[in-house]
């Protein structure tokens, strides 16, 4: 079950967390310097190293374009990986928590994503798989530099921790800029996860640690947990006093969700934000909306098309998106 498929009963602003490590093999050039055959050899070596873990394999030179788009839109692969050819792909755990990119910018990029604010569990699972791999593959490492990566900006622990967070209050009170400045000073970056430039569709942001430099994985982990707790406090500290505005927005979004006939993903993201805030504030009708985070991902174009190939047509897709939403809302009512 993928990270977005689990029901989220919590009302935390944290939608999901992701921990990612980059590693390279000692004894052959980095991916951008390998021929297609050499990349395939690396793919075989890494596959073999994880054989006992019985991972699902997605060879990107074989799978279709739609499948690749789904992996990208569900955050299991990066857009960069989707552009590459032979000898690149994904290894995925059956429970959907772990995904390993092979021959993207580095030989191996191992990531764990989990719904909610399960930073510790994600960190533990990722390090467990990493330890398994490092006993079977020669990871390039140098004293003082840490783990070697093709881009020197990733040297050190070569670890990136990020959280997908829903910050409607900070957004609406115009405090995202100052949040970003404060976090920047303590080694974190904030950006709108969906949308161009400074847009933050759905009032959803991604917070990640900056380049880890001399920090160890444990230090990065601890700093991140503390930071996330602080962000949650800032976002929720005024919840009791938000008053009518949020309530009105919830009911408008809810009403439209119950009756709309056509819905683009962008517009759904707007309603999603109001619905999710309503749930956090304890509005009774919102209590059963535990599927919001899941539907945000599943209603994206590629996942929808994967569920039904006729939904490649955007008009049809918009109607179906609205229909599924109505269905889920009415189901819960009964």
């Amino acid at each position, binding site marked *: 079950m993928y990270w977005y498929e689990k029901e989220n009963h919590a009302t935390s602003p944290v939608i999901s967390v992701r921990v990612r490590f980059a590693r390279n093999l000692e004894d052959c050039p980095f991916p951008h310097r390998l021929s297609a055959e050499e990349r395939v050899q690396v793919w075989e070596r890494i596959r073999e190293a994880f054989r006992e873990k019985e991972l699902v394999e997605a060879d990107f030179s074989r799978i279709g374009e739609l499948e690749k788009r789904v992996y990208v839109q569900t955050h299991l692969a990066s857009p960069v990986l989707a552009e590459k050819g032979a000898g690149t792909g994904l290894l995925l755990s059956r429970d959907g928590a772990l995904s390993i990119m092979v021959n993207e910018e580095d030989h191996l990029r191992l990531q764990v994503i989990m719904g909610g604010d399960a930073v510790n569990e994600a960190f533990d699972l990722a390090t467990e798989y990493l330890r398994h791999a*490092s006993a079977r593959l020669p990871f390039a490492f140098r004293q003082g*530099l840490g783990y070697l990566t093709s881009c*020197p900006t990733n040297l050190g622990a070569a670890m990136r921790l990020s959280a997908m967070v829903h910050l409607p209050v900070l957004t609406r009170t115009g405090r995202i800029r100052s949040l970003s400045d404060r976090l920047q000073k303590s080694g974190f970056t904030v950006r709108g996860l969906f949308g161009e430039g400074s847009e933050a569709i759905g009032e959803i942001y991604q917070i990640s640690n900056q380049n880890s430099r001399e920090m160890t994985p444990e230090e990065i982990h601890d700093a991140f947990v503390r930071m996330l707790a602080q962000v949650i406090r800032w976002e929720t500290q005024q919840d009791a006093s938000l008053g009518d505005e949020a309530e009105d927005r919830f009911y408008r979004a809810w009403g439209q969700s119950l009756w709309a006939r056509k819905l683009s993903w962008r517009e759904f993201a707007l309603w999603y934000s109001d619905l999710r805030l309503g749930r956090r504030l304890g509005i009774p009708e919102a209590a059963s909306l535990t599927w919001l985070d899941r539907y945000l991902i599943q209603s994206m174009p590629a996942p929808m098309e994967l569920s039904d190939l006729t939904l490649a047509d955007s008009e049809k897709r918009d109607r179906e998106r609205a229909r599924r939403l109505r269905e889920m809302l009415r189901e819960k009512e009964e």
Partner: protein
Amino acid sequence: MKCENCNKREAVFHYQRTQNGKTTEAHLCRECAERMGYRSQLESEIFFPFLFESSPRAHALQRCPQCHTALDEIRATGKFSCASCYDAFRDRLDLTPFVGKGYPAAAPVAAGNCESAALAEKEKKKEKKEKSLDELKKALAEAVAAEQYEKAAELRDAIRAREV
């Protein structure tokens, strides 16, 4: 050009080193270079690229011994091409913006060594097995000598199982 040390012989050894933004240079004849301790660098593979003709840009031609990427390429793309590039060019590039005070952890046991480590484990296990096989044979001989035939039979079976 003449050797800058003795000013007598022709300079054939040209050395340039950039560290922390400062560049030091030396232009020496072979004898002075050896006497001044550059000998090990003349012979070591990593420092060999320091030898170049008297052309100021030639140092940029040095290449990584494993993947043959030139330093210039790395400077231009901002990307390294393999693990050995870091060894080859570490002294010529200032990596402090990327590593700060330096990654503190020690090299993990498996890094660069996992195959020999796994092999060493295998050897150890094999050794252990063989040792106890000898011990079993010894024990068998002793059991026979002491006329403990039941025990001897057990040991014999155990030895047979091992030898299969």
